[in-house]
């Protein structure tokens, strides 16, 4: 389906030329996409003295692998990895569970005001998080959750987009499955847990990936709510590191940045098909 069948009258030579042109353009664009990563890796092996060389050196000379252990040792990276990881996992679990519940109610239970409530859910999507962040900070400070991971975990599960997406998936589950279960005496909760959830596993998987990525890469909330170094998430740690060493030692900073990026790159390359399909699905609104 990728290849347009030759239409009557188009010359094969011209078509081939066009295809070569397309590949050339795509490859050139691809190089532009990759260059910042390549440059990050090259720079991460340069010593501090090499920053001052003019003209600028493209390659490290010598290759200073020591930047990596140095960067890793200068900051509590292992701790930050754990923090980012467990916060993201909790975000995924809580978001999936509660938004699947809400989505089920919107998709399959008739109640007064259902349409209105759903509309309000969708409308809240337009409120930028920066609009509520000051009051949220004051609230969470009152609860004693500032400078604690609770500030990231608890408010994080509220996700109207997730409700919307899962509602689309639940609506696609054949109603007959549910009716058959009901005739067998299953209640709402059993139907939700045993019939609906297993049938929307692809949707849950896609959403899980999206929530995990957003949580893992999130920066604004950690910046606002966390102070203690041992609580920092990976992006927060890298930004602090860049703030301290950025101008003085590019090599070290970029090594820190590479350390922060590489695990996610590997995970992406392994699961690329599922991740890309999840993203596409969410962009099409679950269609």
């Amino acid at each position, binding site marked *: 389906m990728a290849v347009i069948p030759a239409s009557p009258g188009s010359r094969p030579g011209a078509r081939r030329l066009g295809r070569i042109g397309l590949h050339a353009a795509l490859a050139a*664009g691809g190089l532009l996409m990759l260059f910042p990563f390549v440059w990050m890796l090259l720079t991460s092996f340069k010593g501090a003295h090499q920053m001052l060389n003019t003209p600028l050196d493209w390659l490290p000379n010598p290759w200073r692998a020591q930047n990596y252990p140095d960067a890793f040792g200068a900051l509590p990276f292992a701790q930050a990895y754990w923090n980012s990881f467990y916060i993201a996992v909790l975000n995924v679990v809580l978001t999936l569970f509660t938004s699947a519940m809400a989505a089920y109610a919107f998709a399959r239970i008739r109640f007064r005001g259902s349409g209105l409530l759903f509309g309000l859910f969708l409308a809240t999507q337009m409120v930028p998080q920066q609009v509520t962040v000051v009051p949220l900070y004051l609230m969470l400070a009152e609860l004693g959750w500032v400078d604690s991971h609770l500030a990231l975990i608890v408010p994080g599960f509220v996700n109207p987009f997730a409700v919307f997406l899962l509602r689309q998936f639940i609506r696609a589950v054949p109603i007959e499955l549910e009716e058959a279960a009901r005739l067998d005496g299953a209640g*709402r909760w059993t139907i939700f847990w045993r019939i609906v959830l297993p049938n929307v596993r692809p949707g849950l998987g896609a959403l899980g990936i999206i929530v995990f990525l957003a949580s893992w890469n999130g920066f604004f909330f950690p910046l606002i709510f966390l102070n203690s170094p041992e609580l920092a998430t990976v992006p927060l740690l890298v930004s602090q590191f860049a703030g301290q060493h950025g101008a003085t030692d590019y090599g070290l900073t970029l090594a820190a940045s590479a350390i922060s990026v590489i695990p996610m790159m590997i995970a992406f390359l392994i699961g690329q098909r599922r991740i890309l399909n999840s993203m596409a699905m969410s962009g099409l609104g679950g269609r």
Partner: protein
Amino acid sequence: MGVVTPARPTPRTRPARAAQRVRNRDGWWAALFLAPQVLGLLAFLVFPLGFAVVLAFMKWDGLGEKSWVGFDNFAAQLTDPEFGTAVWNTVKLALLTVPIGLTLALLVALALNNVRGRTFYRVVYFLPVVTSSVAVAVMWQVILASGDYGVLNSTLHRWFGVTPPDWLDDPGWVIVAIAVVTIWSSLGLNVVIFLAGLQTIPPSLTEAARIDGAGPVRVLRSVTLPMISPTIFFSTVVAVISSFQAFDQIYVLVNPDHNEGARTIVYQVYDLGFQKFEFGMSSAAALILLALTLLVTFVQFAAQKRLVHYDS
């Protein structure tokens, strides 16, 4: 689609009463299923939003006395040249990133739709999307650094003999630099979404158009674009909203405290709230951002009625 009541040949009153009972119980079930998200939404979104509205009419530094100041915070922001700069920069960033970013994404998606090796390119273009915005900003900082320290400027100077501006330090250019980084980091997401949209077009449709004698441009204009216009619309709305909310790349790439050219409304909200502790002012700025977001989204929804093709 709600509860389907099976038609059964029983007397009229009993099923009606039973249905009534089911519906009553359904109300409780709905409340139970909705409770976590709805309560969370009320606590962490609706309540803070109301709180922000109240704060916007107050003067408060978080510690001292609160006092009502009416519309003073709004008036102060709207007449503050710093806020004016922030609004203008926010608008500029959206005008640069949304049309250019989405057009590029559409071109790449159209090209990928017609070529082998799609999987490989999809992965390459998507890499920045899975990279944290902080790491993205750090990478680009090194590329865009001034003079001979940055690879871009040193190359432009050495190979082409031009003296380019200091992208990150020049107030006139920094928003362009931020736009480039934003486009680079979000391109892959839009490509993947557009590509998925393109693949929902039945091949028979484009074929039929071609058999009717339509050239490639005509097929694109009369079949492909109308067919994916709902996707384009959705992506545009999302892109505008997220460009209005851009913070991470700006905060890490350039500190707007040192370069006014990078100050956006969101940065203003952050600066007033978390650096100057003027919670009232910060909330007023935030509500102006919300109003701007709602206005632009409303205009987009009004415009889509004429521009977007929905095929049921």
